[in-house]
């Protein structure tokens, strides 16, 4: 008696596996998708090779003068000879180590706080908030034996990062205070918060910067001069904290009332309830919003070029004006765009990582 042996499973049809299967499923699943795929393919074939040719294959990398750019492609030599200027602005070259040290230290501190399982997080956090700003100020500006480098020499990526970091540093705590103030039951803090938020959200950042740079000096007494960079920084911080407040208020409103009632029932004080129960949950829900505001702030710093501060974009633009290097604006803009993209993309990736890590119960 023969034993029945089932026929082994046939392999799936060759059209549903492998590359063909993947393409059928993802690219040609309907007539409309097929048309879109072919259209996109045409655009890629039509436009990608020239871009690659220009940016990489025909590009000029070697040399240090304009004459080195002969191959017809991009002239990266322009970016190369100006790279330190794009990074540090007019900072004296023998003092670059100060900038690198300051940002390096910040990087280490932030990494310490972000990476899990590092010891003594609260001490490091306190150090970052209370001591690091003083160290950074001494390193960037000078003092304690270091020669003073005035703020008009700051520029390039360094200035962009300083503007963005300080903006973020102030925007988050101010934003939290304003958001709490706006939801407070006390009339005066609430009114002040509402007025502040609506006033700063009601004007464009460009107006704020312009006001700080052009109008403010006229109102101030003759012998009192506040540094232009400081004026711009105050403007940016106040402006962004108003936006941040609204983002955080969104998070506060998303929390069910039961949370604060439960905190009250446990006998927690207002601040205990806020810091132990409400804010941790509220901030978690609005991580995408907070990071969005940070990315926006990072890119908005380019607006300082209208008040003559030499941030990354504006120092790249001023390099276009060098008679020896006229006509390489595309290379400069591509470079600046790339740098901004790298920073914004990393921030965005980190926020996604954070969301995944903290998603403990709301995941659908």
């Amino acid at each position, binding site marked *: 008696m023969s034993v029945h042996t089932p026929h082994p499973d046939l392999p799936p049809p060759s059209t549903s596996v492998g590359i063909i299967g993947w393409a059928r499923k993802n690219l040609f699943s309907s007539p409309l998708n097929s048309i879109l795929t072919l259209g996109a393919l045409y655009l890629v074939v039509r436009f990608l090779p020239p871009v690659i040719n220009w940016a990489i294959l025909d590009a000029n990398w070697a040399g240090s003068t304009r004459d080195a750019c002969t191959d017809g492609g991009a002239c990266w030599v322009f970016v190369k000879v100006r790279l330190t200027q794009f990074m540090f602005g007019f900072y004296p070259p023998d003092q670059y180590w100060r900038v690198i040290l300051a940002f390096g230290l910040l990087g280490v501190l932030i990494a310490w706080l972000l990476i899990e399982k590092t010891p003594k997080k609260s001490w490091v956090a306190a150090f970052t908030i209370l001591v690091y700003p003083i160290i950074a100020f001494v390193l960037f500006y000078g003092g304690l034996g270091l020669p003073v480098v005035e703020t*008009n020499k700051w520029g390039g990526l360094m200035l962009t990062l300083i503007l963005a970091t300080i903006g973020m540093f102030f925007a988050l705590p101010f934003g939290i205070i304003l958001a709490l103030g706006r939801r407070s039951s006390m009339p005066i803090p609430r009114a002040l918060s509402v007025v502040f938020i609506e006033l700063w959200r009601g004007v464009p950042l460009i107006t704020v910067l312009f006001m700080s740079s052009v109008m403010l*000096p006229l109102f101030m007494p003759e012998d009192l001069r506040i540094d232009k960079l400081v004026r711009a920084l105050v403007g940016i911080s106040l402006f962004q904290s108003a936006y941040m407040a609204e983002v955080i208020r969104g998070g506060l409103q998303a929390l069910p009332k039961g949370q604060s009632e439960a905190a009250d029932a446990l006998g927690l004080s207002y601040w205990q309830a806020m810091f132990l129960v409400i804010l941790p949950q509220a901030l978690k829900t609005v991580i995408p919003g907070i990071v969005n505001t940070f990315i926006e702030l990072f890119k908005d710093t380019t607006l300082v070029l209208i008040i003559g501060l030499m941030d990354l974009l504006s120092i790249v633009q001023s390099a276009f004006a*060098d*008679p020896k290097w*006229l006509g390489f604006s595309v290379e400069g803009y591509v470079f600046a765009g790339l740098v901004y993209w790298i920073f914004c993309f990393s921030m965005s990736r980190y926020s996604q990582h954070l969301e995944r890590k903290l998603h403990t119960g709301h995941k659908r």
Partner: protein
Amino acid sequence: MKKLSFIMVAVFFMISASLASASTLEEVQKRDVLQCGVSTGLPGFSNPDEKGNWTGLDVDACRAVAAAVLHDANKVKFVPLTAKERFTALQSGEIDILSRNTTWTLTRDTSLGLNFTHTDYYDGQGFMVSKKLGVKSAKELDGAAICIQSGTTTELNLADYFKQNKMKYQAVVFDTSDQTVKGFEAGRCDVLTSDQSQLYGLRIKLAKPEDAVVLPEIISKEPLGPVVRQGDDGWFNIVKWTIFAMIDAEEMGVTSKNVDEMKKSTDPNIRRLLGLEGIKGKGMNLSDDWAYQIIKQVGNYGEVFERNVGQGSPLKIKRGLNALWNKGGIQYAPPIR
């Protein structure tokens, strides 16, 4: 109402009085650095070079003043300014001199509380045409398509010029100067118009600069020069005579290279210029060698011109109106005596 306007007038006078009380010269000498407002980037006039040093004609005007006042042309703090904030920066005392391709006009000179010192560059609107057109003069441009940047006075000047000469043109308008160049290059127009100093810069941006020529005609007056606050005549004199000294030095043939030999010269004009006889620096409260320092450290007007925008630079702008008065131009400075 009357009371209010009285208060405003009083406040205004208090402000102007407080401005006038501190002498800019003393302030600069005490600070030991000159604060100079320049453009954020204009080829040949003010732009940072690869090493981060500011260079250009406008920049050298400030360096010359620093050489005269502080004996060191490098003691200048350059404050890059946009067109909108430049006058406020000067009025509020953030800068001591504004040297930022600013056109001298009646309105600016009389209603902003500023004084224009002297024109260190006579600019004006000009035309660039492609060589193959074979046009030699702007008078032959009847019926041409002209590339122009929108929203500038250039548009107005162009319309006036063609109307006066009873010619017709077709304007092709762009938003930025880069787009204007691309339009010209793509053949959308036969002619590109802008301030002449900028035409030479735009010309270098073309793929083949040798195919385009800048026509000699200028259809508008754009005198550019350093500006100071009104109400400090001493400072006004210093800046004005700094420019004069550079022009006079060129006229006498004193350059940064031969200035030390020239000290042995017997020509009384040169001796007075270099502070060896005559009034020297007394009238301006400067040291006697003020002009020597300018010439030694920065150069005479011709050197500065050629180095930044002329034959010694990629721009290759011809002297034109900016040649000395005895060489076909209109640069003329009062005598130093």
